[in-house]
Structure formats: C-alpha cells, structure tokens
C-alpha cells in the first residue's frame, strides 16, 4: 500500500500547478495541527468558540490585538480562521469516514449478494442522488438543529450513496475473479472474504475518489454554516464569519474601510478550495484520463 502512495506524491510533485497546491495545502494542515499554539484557546472547555473582544457592533480594523481585525460583535477574525481550519478538517475527515463506512457496508452487501437486496439499496441511493445534495443537506440539518456533529450527520447522509455505488461496482468487478470463487469453495465466510480480499482490492480506487471529493465537502459544509444551518452562533467557522460580514455589508453602513471583514475570510476559503482543486485536477488526469 505504501509504495503506490509515495509514487503518487512524486508524480504530483512533478506538476508545477499541483506543487503549489500541495504547498498551500501543507500550510493549512499545519494551521489545523498547531492551532492551539498559533491562537491560544479562548475558552478551555471548547476552543472552537471564537474569541470575542467586546460586544460593539462596529467591526475593527486589523491591529496588534486582532491581526485580521474583528467582525461585528467583535469576533476575532484571525482566531476564527485558524480554528476554522481545524474545524473544517475535522468535519471533512468525519464525513469521509462515515460515508466510507456506510458505503462499504451497503455497497458491499448490494454488490456481493445482488438480487432483491441489491435492487432495494440501489433504488434508495438513486433517490437520494436525485435531490441536489445541498438542498437535501439543508433539509436534514434543519430537522436535526444546529451543531457540529449534526452538520457531519447531514452531509454524510447525502454523501454516502456515491461511495456505495463505487464500492458496489468495484465489488462486482472483483467478485467474478477466480480467487474469490476458490475462497468460497474452500468454505471461507463472507466477513473473511471481505476483509482479506474484497476490501484491500477495492479500497485504493475508493480512496482516490474520496480525495477528489474533499473540496466539495468543504464547500457544502461552509455553505451550510453560511446559511445559518451549521455550527451554533459564535463558532470558529468560515461560513459563519462570512455570513456575519454579509450582514454588515448589507446594512448599508459598509464602506471600503471595512472590506477586510469580507476579503480575509473569502481569501481563506478560496485558497483552500483552490489548492485542493489544483491537486484534484492532476489526480483525475492520472486516474481517469477520459475526463481530462
């Protein structure tokens, strides 16, 4: 498993565009990992609550106390960006793991057994995929209410069907191979066959497809919190900070002096998605030349 991965990174590094993407992404990973050192937790019990300087409605310009300035109600933008990076990684990783797990189980059962159960599971995924994912995620998170874990559940709910489909098609490919038939012949149980043969053979392609997916998860998660359906108020969440800036912008009091409250968080999200897309483009060329 390790060799193809290091080869892959070497291949990616050779491409100039992808190299910049990897460099930017590394900065974000570092921000997420070292968040407690870069911006000291404001509240010990929950570091994701943004540092609030006071309750004044007028945003502040960048200063020594708040390097990126503050939004209305004095939320510290620098703090929100740093911890927001950590939060978005947390959400993305959880969504991918949950979707992979559900996709593995349902796609696996569907592909391995076929027949009626396959039909039922696949029609279910078809139906979920026939509603635009953001819209369905809005619906689920409205029902679940605000909260980080609930955002994860809402996005996972719309995300797993794609994984189930991929797993299913991978398994259909592997199932008909001889070594699986021999394993069945010598009386191997289904769990053993899955663990020993099917998952190791299918997981690589699925992981690649999962990595192509990260940018979309980031966009949908930050869109949800921008719409006020994600994290509870006061959380270090990129989308939420942007929506605070929007309220200030729309109030009619804004001017060029306060443009930083819009520009800084926008650049932060943009660069992250941009770096992911730079890497994804090359990945797609390597693994699926037809789409290039």
């Amino acid at each position, binding site marked *: 498993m390790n060799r193809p991965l290091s080869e892959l990174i070497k291949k990616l590094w050779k491409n100039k565009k992808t190299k910049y993407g990897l460099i930017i992404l590394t900065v974000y990973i570092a921000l997420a990992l070292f968040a407690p050192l870069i911006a000291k937790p404001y509240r010990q019990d929950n570091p994701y609550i943004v540092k609030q300087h006071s309750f004044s409605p007028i945003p502040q310009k960048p200063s020594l106390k708040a390097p990126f300035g503050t939004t209305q109600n004095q939320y510290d933008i620098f703090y929100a960006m740093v911890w927001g990076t950590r939060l978005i990684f947390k959400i993305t990783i959880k969504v991918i793991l949950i979707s992979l797990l559900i996709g593995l189980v349902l796609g696996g059962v569907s592909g391995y057994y076929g027949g009626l159960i396959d039909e039922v599971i696949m*029609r*279910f995924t*078809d*139906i*979920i995929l*026939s*509603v*635009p*994912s*953001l*819209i*369905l995620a*809005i*619906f*689920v*998170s*409205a*029902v*679940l*209410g605000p909260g980080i874990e609930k955002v994860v559940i809402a996005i996972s709910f719309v995300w797993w069907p794609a994984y189930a489909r991929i797993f299913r098609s991978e398994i259909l490919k592997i199932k008909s191979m001889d070594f699986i038939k021999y394993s069945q012949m010598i009386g191997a149980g289904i769990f053993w066959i899955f663990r020993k043969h099917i998952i190791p053979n299918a997981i690589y392609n699925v992981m690649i497809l999962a990595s192509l997916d990260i*940018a979309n998860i980031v*966009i949908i998660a*930050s*869109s949800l919190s*921008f*719409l*006020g*359906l994600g994290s509870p108020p006061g959380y270090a969440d990129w*989308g939420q900070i*942007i929506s605070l*800036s*929007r309220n200030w*912008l*729309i109030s009619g009091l*804004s*001017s*060029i002096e306060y*443009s930083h409250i*819009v*520009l800084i968080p*926008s650049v932060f*999200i*943009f660069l992250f*998605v*941009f770096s992911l*897309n730079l890497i994804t483009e090359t990945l797609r060329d390597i693994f699926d030349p037809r789409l290039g």
Partner: protein
Amino acid sequence: MYKGMKKFLIRKILFIPLTFIGITMILFFIINLLPPQTLALAYTDSDKELTKEELDLIIEKYDLKGNILKRYGKWLLKTLKGDLGYSQVSKMKVIDAIKKYLPATIELTIFSIIPIFIIGNLLGLTAARNKDGLSDKIISTTSSFFYSMPSFIIGILLLLIFYGIFGVLKPQRYSITTEIMISQGLFKTYTNFMLIDSILNLNPSVFIDSLKHLILPSLSIFLGTSASFIKITRNSTLEELNKDYVRTLRAKGLSENYIFQKHIRKNILIPQITVGGLQMIRLLSGVVITETIFDWPGIGSFGVRAARQLDVSSVMGFVIIVSILFLLGNLIIDLLYVYFDPRIKYE
C-alpha cells in the same frame, strides 16, 4: 421518431412520479424524527400561539404518534391535491408562497442559464481557436479561478465591489420606489415576473430597475457555474479539430468560419449537453445561496428562512419544489439528447 425512442421517453416520464414518491417518502420519514409537538405546528393554518391542550388535540386528531405509513399515505394524497399546509415564515399557505416566490427564481435562473450557454460557448470556442495563445490562457485561468470559489464567496465579493464600494447595484429584486408603487396599486403584478409585468404595465423605468437588480445575482451564478461548460466546449472543440474530416474540409478550401458554423458547433453539442446536465446541481445550489446573499425573494431564500426556523410545512414544500425542478431539468436534458443525437440507441 426513431425506433425505440418513444419507449425510451415514456420510460423516462414514468420514472418521474416514481422518483417523486421515493423522495417524498424519505423526506417524510426524516421529518418524523421530530417530536409530535413540533410536527403538530405543521397542521395549523394560522400563526397564533397554541396552548399545550390545543397541540395535544392536533396530535390526537391527526394521529401523530400513530402508524407512519398510514400518515404518509394521507399526507401524500393531500400534497397531490396541492395542499402543502400553512407556512409560518411567510404567513400564508405554502402553495401560495411557492406561487409567489417561484417566478422570481425562474426569472433569475433563466437570466443565468442563457449567458452560460451563449457567453460560455463563445468563450470556449475562442479559447480553442487560440489554443495556448493569450486569450486561451486568460479564459482558462479565470474560469478555473472562479470554479474554486464557493458561490457564496463570489456573491459576497460582487456585493462588496458593486454595492459596498461603488454603490451602483443593489441587492433585492427591485428598488423602494417600485415597492411603493406595488403597494399603492400603481403597478400591477399579473405574473410576478417583473420584466413581463413591467411590459404589461407599460412602465420602462420598472423594467430597467428590475434588469439592474438582476445583474449581480445572475452574474454571480454565471461565474460560479460556467467554468465546466467553458472547459468542455474548449476541449471537445480541440478534439474535433484533430479529426480527419476537418482536415478534409480544410483541404477543400473551406473557410475556418464555415467549418466552425457548419460542423464543429454541431458535433460538440452532445458533450455540452452532458456537462450542462451535470452542472444543474451546481446551478440549483448556486441559486439557493445567491438568493440568500442578495435578499432575492425566491424559492431559495424562502426555503432557507423556513429551514432556519424549522417551519415544517414550508421546508417540505421547498425541497419538494426544488426536486421537481431538478427532475424536470433532467427530463429536458434527456429530450435534448434525443433531439440532437439520432445515433443513440434507445433500448
């Protein structure tokens, strides 16, 4: 009609109600995760506060703790009759709210799709004709730049530039002057499509006013959605240009313009339709977010408001109407395939 095509279309059309029932079933099951007290609010038709006894009465009357399949059946029948319940956020029936907000969304969507097809096509062709030249580089870089921008960031940056800094264009659907004219009955809203209404009212100033308000949100959706379309236009044009028939046409001495008009534009239609269909999800999500950013009084901002306050009937109505739009959009894509590609076998 080609052989088997009728069958193909009938199957596609029959598929829509089945999917619709599947979607509503899933939505109904999810919404029933809520406690009966919250669900009971969906069965009221006014916005006065309910006492606990009244809520219990509703729960009992509609059997909200009872068998979910039975309740789903009743709800589906009601929905098919057009009764989607009462909307707390807009203080009217959900179906009336949809009638009120849908024209604004359709207006915005049309004004975003047309530029994607016309300008996107033009940009893609220009890039292909100047492959690796300056205009190709500018078009490709800019479009991949916007592709990486979540639609709410494009919207908010446009708002910052054109409203915050220059103050030339404003959010919302029309200016206060128009709003006063409507409320005083000086401007009649026949269709709720502002552009059509202003023509019917013979009122050019409202027409220009509405057009000005359309620019920012539709530009925002255009920038967020057109990238893939431009890219597929460019790449499939380049692919066509390498084919033998183009070489033959050139050898015959035909002009480049003629080759593009007569042959290439037709041959790239199929990949364009495919990508157009795939981009529909991005478009609809973009519309919902853009409406929220620009206070555009459409289905999207209505749905988001309903979702924030957990107005059960409205949020159900919102997802149902968006799903219908999406299903219809997919049907249109299928029809376009049939129309433009007679080679496809419909088995």
